[in-house]
């Protein structure tokens, strides 16, 4: 099990009811972690509509998760 920190924004923050959490996971990649969290919290957005950031930088969905990583799942953006 790895310990990771997850930040939530916008629709994910509202659906989770908090801005972030620390958790232990067996997930090996951001993709596996999102599937786990989606099942647990009922997120409506499929992974295909999100991007993922690891340690405050965009990352691929299949990078290996490391202990202590900070993740953020990024809903479709809408600046301006």
């Amino acid at each position, binding site marked *: 099990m790895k310990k990771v920190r997850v930040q939530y924004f916008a629709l994910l923050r509202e659906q989770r009811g908090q801005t972030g959490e620390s958790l232990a996971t067996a997930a090996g990649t951001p993709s596996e972690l999102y599937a786990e969290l989606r099942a647990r919290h009922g997120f409506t957005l499929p992974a295909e509509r999100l991007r993922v950031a690891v340690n405050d930088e965009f990352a691929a969905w299949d990078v290996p998760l490391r202990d202590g990583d900070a993740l953020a799942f990024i809903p479709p953006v809408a600046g*301006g």
Partner: protein
Amino acid sequence: MFRLSAIPLDAAALRRELAHPQAGAFASFEGRVRDHNDGQAVVMLEYEAFAALAEKEGARVVAEAREKFPLLQALCVHRTGRLQAGELAVWIGVLAAHRAAAFDACRYIIDEAKTRVPVWKKEHYAGGASLWINAATRGESASSSPPEL
């Protein structure tokens, strides 16, 4: 340069941050909160940002514009927090020797920033409904509380 601002943007003050003796052209863009969207009265709007990554990605967008076009200076500032109709949400200013580069860069920055910088916009409507806006699909399926259309 790119930055986020939690306080109201002052377009005249931002304009004064840019100056260069070789600047023949200044192009600028202001994005403002409209009082209606898709036929609904917008009473308030919230911008939420993933600040650490938004500032990095915003800076990359501006740096790309400077690589693609012959610019002298470029600045993009994006609001966060709650905005009323009429308030300034984003300000972009570009100085260049000639106008084509200034226009092209200004447009490049807003087009890229809107789809890449992790900032989210939630519109609050007169009837009490609210909606997370999606730059790509305009409200399709990302609704937390669908407005009555």
